[in-house]
């Protein structure tokens, strides 16, 4: 089963005793802060986990796969995630 925000809030309550309402707010705020930083063009570096970087992509030719019509893909800014060394070595051989 995939990990969700609800699981994370529940975990904070169980492990740290943070009340459920605060736990839920904190999990939400955690992801919102990261979104805000990226939105403002700021790189996010979470040591032990990884970095969220921003990359600017130039316009490039594309096409509508349904109709075959040529349409340019506009220049855009995208988020990329670069896992840190520690996370990479932890997941190399998943213990499932």
């Amino acid at each position: 089963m995939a990990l969700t925000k609800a699981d994370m809030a529940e975990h904070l309550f169980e492990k740290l005793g943070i009340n459920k309402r605060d736990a839920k707010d904190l999990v939400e705020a955690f992801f919102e802060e990261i979104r805000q930083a990226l939105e403002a063009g700021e790189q996010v570096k979470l040591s032990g986990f990884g970095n969220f970087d921003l990359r600017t992509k130039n316009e490039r030719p594309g096409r509508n796969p349904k109709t075959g019509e040529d349409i340019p893909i506009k220049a855009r800014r995208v988020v990329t995630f670069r896992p840190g060394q520690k996370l990479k070595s932890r997941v190399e051989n998943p213990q499932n």
Partner: protein
Amino acid sequence: MTKSELIERLADQYRQLPAKDVESAIKEILEQMAQTLQRGDRIEIRGFGSFSLHYRAPRVGRNPKTGDTVELEGKYVPHFKPGKELRERVND
């Protein structure tokens, strides 16, 4: 923004919580995320994105210093796919 800056920003917003709790919570969130991936499970955060593992097939690599060939085993690497809200907010 680094992890400690993120903790500070959140602690400023949540004055009702001891700063220590905010710090432990953030560290605990990241640890739980890492453990989930380590087990081979996915993470799905609506509006933010999902994390999963991608398989990399075994290959023959080279030691760049000596030029010797090295057999590299197959492995899994973390992958992040940004969600719709994040993609749109970053691109505006």
